[in-house]
Every structure is written in structure tokens, then in C-alpha cells.
């Protein structure tokens, strides 16, 4: 919710104008505070309800989920930002292929997302005592990277779906929070009602979270490869669907001339 307000104010105003005061030290502070407080919240809730065994599960889950703020939110805000700024028509007018264009822009957020996960792992280890001693570094690194990448693709999907809305930020907010419920972040997917469980597997994060837990417990790259493969597929599908929606939207906009208003 707090992030919504940050991003809402920035989507209403120009991004740069808003952040002129946000010097690097402050940005870093925000990053640290936000990720640790969400993790702390759920760790304590988990501790209270399910006992100390829940802590590593929840801490790792939240660490991976922190990637979603940067990826989903940011990808949507890129396109939302373009819309508000009035530059989107110009951007879409260039013959450059859309896909690399958006991926290029998303890249910085993917990297930012990976950084968030790293910071969260740091907190998980030193504040909440999660044991990283058995970690298979290669497996974990690849998992984190792939999760960030596929979640960016997922962000594109959401961006494409709610592009025509007046307030895409609200949806971004809903989705980022929904991940906490559906992706096995705070409890296994099996805890959810049977009917709902399939939904979890639409999100690339679901696979990433499980793979990360396994990798930290010592699973090798080979062990997690199935999960990562599934994640990649889901991620690519959302990327393509998202891309399709953008194309569709663009075509509609050209027909109706409604680009600016939307």
C-alpha cells in the first residue's frame, strides 16, 4: 500500500520531477526499509500462528516476492508513465520493434529486482536466522535471475491487459499483493482451497519460490531445472500474450485515434 502511494504520486506527476529529491542514499534506505518490514510482518505472523519452523519458509518466500515490486510495478509504470507523459504515441510511432524496446527498458528493473532479492536474503540470514550454509549458489543465482526476468514478462502481461484503464497502478498494486497469497510465498500452495490452486501456477513466481527454497537447502541445478523450465515457459507465454495485447491495443488506438485519452 505504501508503494502504491509512492508510485501513484509519480504517475500523476512526471517521474523525474518527483524524484529529483530522491538521492541515492535515500533510495537505498527506502529499499532496505520496505523489504525488511514486509518480511518481518509475515515472519512474525507466521511465528505466531505456525511456530518457528515457518520462519525460513516465509523469509525466503518474501525475499523472492520482493522482485515483484521492481518488475511488475515498474514495467507497468513505464508504460503508464509514457501514457501520462504523452510520449507513448511517439514511442509507438517509431518503427523499432516493440518487444526489444520494452525489454530494454525493463532490463534496469530486472536488475533492480535482483538487487532487492539479494538485500532480502541478507535480512533473512542476519535478522531471521535463515541458514544459507547448504546453498547451491549456481542454482540459486539462476533461479533469482530467471524469476526476475519472467516476472518482468508477467508485468508486461498485466500492463497489456490494463493499459486501457485509467488507473493501471491500482491493478499493479492488486497483483503484487496477490502474489503473497497465491504463490506459495507465505505458505505452501496446497494450503489454498483446491479450486483456487491452479491459479497459482500462472505466476512465474510460484515456481521460483519453490526452486529457491530447494536451492538454499542444497538442491543442484539439475534438481531445480524442471521448475525453472516450467517457470521459463510461463514467463515466455506471459511475455508473448502481453506483447500481443500491446499490439492489439496499438492497432485499436490507431483506428480510433484514442491513444492520448486512454
Amino acid at each position, binding site marked *: *500500500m*505504501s*508503494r*502504491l*502511494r*509512492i508510485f*501513484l*504520486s509519480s504517475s*500523476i*506527476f512526471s517521474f523525474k520531477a*518527483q524524484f529529483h*529529491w*530522491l538521492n541515492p542514499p*535515500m533510495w537505498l534506505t*527506502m529499499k532496505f*526499509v*520496505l523489504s525488511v*518490514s*514486509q518480511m*518481518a*510482518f*509475515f515472519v*512474525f*505472523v*507466521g*511465528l*505466531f*500462528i*505456525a511456530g518457528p519452523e*515457518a520462519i525460513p519458509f516465509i523469509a525466503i518466500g518474501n525475499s523472492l516476492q520482493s522482485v515483484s515490486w521492481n518488475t511488475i510495478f515498474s514495467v507497468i509504470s513505464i508504460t503508464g508513465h509514457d501514457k501520462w507523459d504523452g510520449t507513448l504515441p511517439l514511442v509507438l510511432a517509431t518503427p523499432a520493434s516493440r518487444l526489444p524496446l520494452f525489454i530494454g527498458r525493463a532490463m534496469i528493473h530486472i536488475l533492480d529486482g535482483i538487487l532487492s532479492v539479494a538485500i532480502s536474503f541478507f535480512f533473512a540470514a542476519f535478522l531471521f536466522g535463515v541458514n544459507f550454509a547448504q546453498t547451491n549458489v549456481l542454482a540459486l543465482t539462476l533461479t533469482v535471475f530467471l524469476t526476475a526476468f519472467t516476472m518482468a514478462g508477467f508485468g508486461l502481461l498485466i500492463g497489456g491487459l490494463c493499459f486501457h484503464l485509467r*488507473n493501471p497502478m*491500482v491493478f499493479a*498494486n*492488486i497483483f503484487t*499483493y*496477490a502474489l*503473497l*497469497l497465491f504463490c506459495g510465498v*507465505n*505458505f505452501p500452495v496446497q*494450503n*489454498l482451497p483446491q479450486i483456487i490452486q491452479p491459479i497459482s501456477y500462472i505466476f512465474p513466481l510460484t515456481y521460483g519460490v519453490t526452486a529457491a527454497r530447494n536451492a538454499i537447502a542444497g538442491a543442484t541445478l539439475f534438481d531445480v531445472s524442471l521448475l525453472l523450465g516450467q517457470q521459463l515457459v510461463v514467463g515466455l507465454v506471459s511475455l508473448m500474450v502481453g506483447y500481443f495485447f500491446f499490439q492489439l491495443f496499438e492497432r485499436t488506438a490507431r483506428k480510433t485515434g484514442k491513444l492520448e485519452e486512454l
Partner: protein
Amino acid sequence: MPEALRVIYSAFRMAMLHWFADPQWVIPNIIAPFIFTSVALTLFKDSTGPFGLYAVLGGGMMGMWGNTLYASGFAIEMERWQGTLEEVMAAPSKLLHVVAGRSVSNAVFGLTNMLAVFLIAVLVFRVQIEVDDPLLFVTTTVLTLVSVSTLGLIFASAFVLSRSTQVLTNGLETPLYIISGSMFPIALLPFWIHPIAYVLGPTWGVDAIRLAASQEYLSQTFWQGFDVNTAILLDVVMMMAITLAYAGMAVVLFKVVEKRARIKGTLVEA
């Protein structure tokens, strides 16, 4: 004095008008509490104990507070962008009264958020909420709301001066949920956090609300050895004392902020 009330009411009315103009803004305020509550409730499904009460009350608290504390910041930001903040500050009325009026409207929305979370918990998650003493429950809820609103006034004074303050305090939201013991007992937290928790008025309010809802909670309250009603009373007294202190601070802060804004001229940009 009546003039102050008139200003407060007018600001309240203006805030309500804006809400009716854009009711969809209520959604962001419910999402986090709803999700957090759902997570807690799903975690709780296989366990025993008073967790249900904690989860639902906790979520309700979050729904109530998120809106109350930070909506004023957002509203001030909107006013700054619209150019009306300048004009409001140029008027003879005290800014404190204007913001207080808005806080009241936020409190009202906070209550509706709380109700929404409760409804979802009962209907979707089939949590059984039995309230031992409904009258006390409602009273303590309203009083806690007052306490949170007053705390929000203090934040609002900082928002007037600068945008950066607003974003900084946004980051305090989740920590506040943690420290106030809304979704889990403070006892779980590291000992050094406890003093901070007890300085916050709402912490006592949450305790009182829980006691009013369920006698069972008596074993976990701060006031060991007292009976339920006494414990509730003690909680309320603590909370109101702290809230009065907040109110005093708010009065001073607004005077300071107004003067500073007049010196620095940072109402339009910042």
C-alpha cells in the same frame, strides 16, 4: 470555537465530496489489509488458538489505519498539485482545523475498510467472530480510531512542508502494523521494540478492542491480574493520555509548519 467546528465540518464535507467523485480510490486502501488478513487466515486454518480473532482484528486495524494515517498525505499532495494548498493556507482559518476535518473523513472511511475486511473474513473464510461485549467493542474501536487520526495529524503536518517526508513516512506503515501488535502479540517482538510499542496510542487501543471481543485474550494482555473491564479501562486511559499528548504536539507542529511554509514558500513546488 464554533468557527473552528465550522471549518472542521467544511473540510470534512469537502473530503467526502471528493470521495464520492472518485470512489474507486477506496480499492487500494483495502487491498493490502485484505491480502494480509487472507494470508494470516490461510496460515491459521490448521492451527488452534485465538488466531482467528487476531487475524481478523489485525486486518481490520490495517484497513482502518492505512487510510487514516496516510490518506491525509496523499490528499495534501493532491492539493499541492491542484494549487489549492496555497489558497487554503492563505485563508484565515487554521490549517490544523482543515486537516482535522479531513482526518475525520478518513476515519470514517477507515471504519468502512474495517467492515469490509470483517465481511470478507466472515463470508469467504468463514471465520466466526463472536464479540463478548459489542458496546465496549464499538467504543474502543472508535476511540482507537481517534487515537490513530490524531497521530495522523502529526504526520500530516510534515507532509505540508515537503513531499519527501510523505514518501518517508509511507515506509513506516508496515512497521507500524508490526509494532502495534495488531496481528500478533507484541511479546513476539524483540524486547527493544516494546518501549516503542507502548508509546504508541493505538497499541493500547488494539489491546482494548481484543479484550472487548474475547475474554480469552485476557491471558495475553498487558494488564495481568486485572479483570476484563478494568484492563479495558486501563488501556483506554493510557491511549487517551497518549492521544492528548499527540493533540498537543499537533497544535504546536502545525503552528511551526505554517510559519516555516510562509518563510520558505515551499507550498507550490517542494
